């Protein structure tokens, strides 16, 4: 029963105050099931949903991939993966065995027609065995280039339903980011897949939206009027959004050479954080109402001036350096990376949103690899108090800063100024600090658990809508084209273990600001 159905049905046992999402009976088919994402995220997520009782009772999961394997091999591999990557440990057989009985493997190339025919037969058999009612969730955990072909094959082999005609069962497709690699390719991909799917059937995943702390952004903003009333250009000086990683590209050299930081992080995760911070209160907490407001933010984002990109958006590439005291190599020395690569591993930008709420407030965005630490956070710096009230001897009055830490050490802190005890004592900044882990204990659900559960219950709130995606590509594609047309002679331009290139500091220095130390 979906949330919608539950809300309308008059059952004496239904308790809508509990707001428990009921995922529909279904079969989840994971394309690319032998890849990293499945073992690190998807299967652990499904397992934990099962442990929490949030997987539908009638459920099965099929891994679809090219490597020859049996279902038993797949179960064994997935058990090892869940043992390593699950947020709940240890894995008990009481929990694992009933779950693993629902795991199956289907071996085929993505472009083999008989592979899809045999998949259809297998799924029909599983429908009978597990009463999954024909509902299908196809997770495309593959290279984006395979998406159109897989979807076409699904359609051709009767594995997708026309939801205008078929009402008693559903088929949905989850597509991993990035959706396209620029505006034109995103538009073309959308055109391709909408030959076979309606927008309602497409779930574009951005796993940041599934994070507890990202969802808390909306709760925080709209359930605390004290903050909402100052969430505007009258009170805020600037907003800094940082997505920092201390790891390099690892073994993803080939992928990274085609993508770069702007495509991998900025176009999707960063834009999601930006829209959630900047959006107006929605009319309702429905998927469309929220996403409508997010799209408006993207539409109001001022395009980067084409004649002067460099003053507003900077790129960097990490060189050799040290992370946690250990030497690390530069990007160009990584496996499968060209020694003259022009691809960026760091982006910083100054962005403005031209609407009533945000006019004049710079949004500073930075994302990078091989930075000193891993941290994703949003820092809202408020305007400073007039200092004439305080004597010179009492020191500089620091601005208040509200920080929402997305990961790690999820939480919220507020920097304030207090007087040091004593006569004629100066002012000292202090922090009020809330840590999720300390207050609520344990580890919150992982992003993929929430997203998979939502997809199974048909809730699209936490999935990107096509107009959101296109709006962010519209903003960033001109920058991509500009960068692709110019070989960056200064690369690599920041040592690993530092906070990025010097030019990134200048981006803020021109207005007398600086990057906050994280």
């Amino acid at each position, binding site marked *: 029963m979906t949330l919608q159905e539950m809300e309308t049905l008059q059952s004496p046992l239904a308790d809508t105050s509990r707001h428990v999402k009921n995922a529909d009976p279904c079969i989840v088919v994971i394309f690319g099931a032998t890849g990293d994402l499945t073992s690190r995220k998807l299967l652990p997520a499904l397992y934990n949903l099962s442990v929490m009782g949030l997987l539908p009772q009638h459920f099965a999961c099929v891994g679809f991939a090219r490597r020859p394997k049996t279902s038993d091999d797949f179960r064994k591999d997935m058990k090892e993966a869940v043992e390593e990557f699950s947020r709940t440990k240890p894995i008990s057989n009481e929990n694992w065995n009933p779950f693993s009985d629902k795991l199956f493997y289907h071996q085929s190339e993505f472009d083999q027609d008989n592979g899809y025919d045999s998949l259809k037969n297998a799924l029909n058999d599983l429908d009978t065995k597990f009463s999954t009612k024909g509902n299908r969730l196809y997770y495309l955990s593959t290279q984006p280039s395979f998406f159109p072909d897989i979807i076409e094959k699904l359609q051709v082999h009767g594995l997708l339903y026309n939801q205008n005609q078929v009402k008693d069962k559903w088929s949905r497709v989850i597509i991993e980011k990035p959706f396209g690699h620029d505006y034109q390719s995103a538009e073309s991909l959308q055109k391709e897949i909408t030959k076979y799917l309606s927008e309602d059937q497409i779930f574009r995943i951005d796993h940041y939206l599934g994070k507890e702390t990202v969802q808390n952004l909306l709760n925080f903003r709209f359930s605390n009027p004290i903050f909402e009333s100052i969430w505007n250009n009258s009170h805020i000086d600037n907003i800094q959004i940082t997505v920092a990683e201390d790891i390099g590209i690892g073994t993803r050299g080939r992928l990274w050479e085609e993508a770069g930081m702007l495509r991998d992080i900025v176009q999707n995760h960063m834009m999601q954080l930006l829209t959630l911070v900047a959006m107006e209160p929605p009319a309702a907490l429905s998927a469309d109402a929220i996403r409508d407001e997010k799209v408006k933010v993207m539409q109001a984002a001022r395009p980067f001036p084409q004649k002067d990109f460099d003053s507003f958006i900077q790129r960097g590439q990490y060189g050799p350096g040290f992370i946690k005291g250990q030497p690390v190599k530069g990007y160009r020395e990584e496996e499968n990376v060209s020694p003259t690569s022009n691809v960026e591993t760091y982006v910083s930008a100054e962005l403005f949103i031209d609407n009533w709420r945000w006019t004049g407030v710079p949004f500073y965005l930075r994302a990078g690899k091989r930075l000193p*630490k891993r941290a994703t956070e949003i820092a809202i710096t408020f305007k400073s108090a007039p200092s004439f009230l305080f004597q010179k001897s009492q020191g500089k009055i620091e601005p208040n800063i509200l920080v929402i830490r997305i990961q790690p050490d999820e939480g919220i802190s507020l920097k304030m100024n207090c007087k040091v005890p004593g006569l004629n004592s100066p002012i000292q900044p202090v*922090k009020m600090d809330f840590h999720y882990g300390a207050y609520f204990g344990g580890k919150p659900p992982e992003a993929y658990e929430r997203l998979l559960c939502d997809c199974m219950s048909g809730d699209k709130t936490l999935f990107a809508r096509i107009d959101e995606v296109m709006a962010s590509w519209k903003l960033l594609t001109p920058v991509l084209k500009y960068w692709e047309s110019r070989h960056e002679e200064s690369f690599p331009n920041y040592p690993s273990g530092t906070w990025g290139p010097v030019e990134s500091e200048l981006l803020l220095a021109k207005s007398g600001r600086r990057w906050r130390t994280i």
Partner: protein
Amino acid sequence: MDKNGSLQVIDIEKELKKLWDENEHEKKVKACLFTLIVYVREGQRGDTIRQITQSIIQEFPCRMISIFERSSLKDHLSTEVSQYTSLEGGVLIASDQISITASPNYLERIPFIVTPEIVPDLPVYIIWGADLQNCPLLKAFEKLATKIIFDADCSPPLPSYSKTIYEKIGKVPYELQDFHWALSGGWRECLFQGFNNEEGVRFLGSIESVHIVFNDIETNTGLLNDTLAWYVQAWLASSLNWKLKSCRFSERKAEYTSLAGPINVELNSARSNNFFQSAILSIEIKNRTGDTYAFMRHPDRDKVILHVTRKNICDLPALFPFPDLQRGFNFMRELFFFVESDHYAKTLKCLSELKG
């Protein structure tokens, strides 16, 4: 792990979290007012600075990152974490401590270890317990600092140290402070209070001699016991716009001129086990008409007695509170909470001119 040395760099955040989680049952509260980075070199005032930092963390919860450069080690880099706990108002307060030990050839890695451990949004104070020459690490830390506290005794001689620090004033993005300036705070306050009346101000305009006695007890740390005394006389001289005429540094004598005439300054040693080494025990100031203001540390260490003797009158002694400025809250206030002042700049300038 290097072939011939020792490389034990732990995952600091992970170990700190582990420490915190292991002691969760103790119901502690984590607190932090600032990040304190302390850098000392083997053989250079390490013990003294450790004592000072110990008293800092006793007063203020802070994340302390200690860096110990040991030239006796080869190819060495190690890190350790611990937790300092204190009971305040019935609440157990815990603060993180991170220690880094490195041989000189691994110093370049230290900024990369320290940078991620800085507590965001709060001040970063650095105690630089080493000389100012040949220190690439200082350059890296200058970018992080809210305030750097220097130690004149780590970077002798005093005049060239003062010149180096003076030249930084107004040119660096962080505030400057030094131990001896902080330690001189008590005497500056006392002298101000002592002369803070009409007669006192008139007296200041006619000073003829200044005689400072400092505590010259044994030291094995290379501490120069007269440094604080030089600071106080320089502060007096610069505040009263005296011009240096001559200086015999090794004899601890200086001669200044003012509109009223020449002023002789002399520093003498004494020994007292009641006070810390280099503490100023007394300051006697005479003017041209024979009046004397004699400030003396009271055996109760938290007071100073002032005897004012005029030609025809002998005032009753006055008592001034004198904060314990070797440790404790007052010292911390001096070090961390007072901003750079013109007085400090002028004192440094005066010290930088002392030669001979």
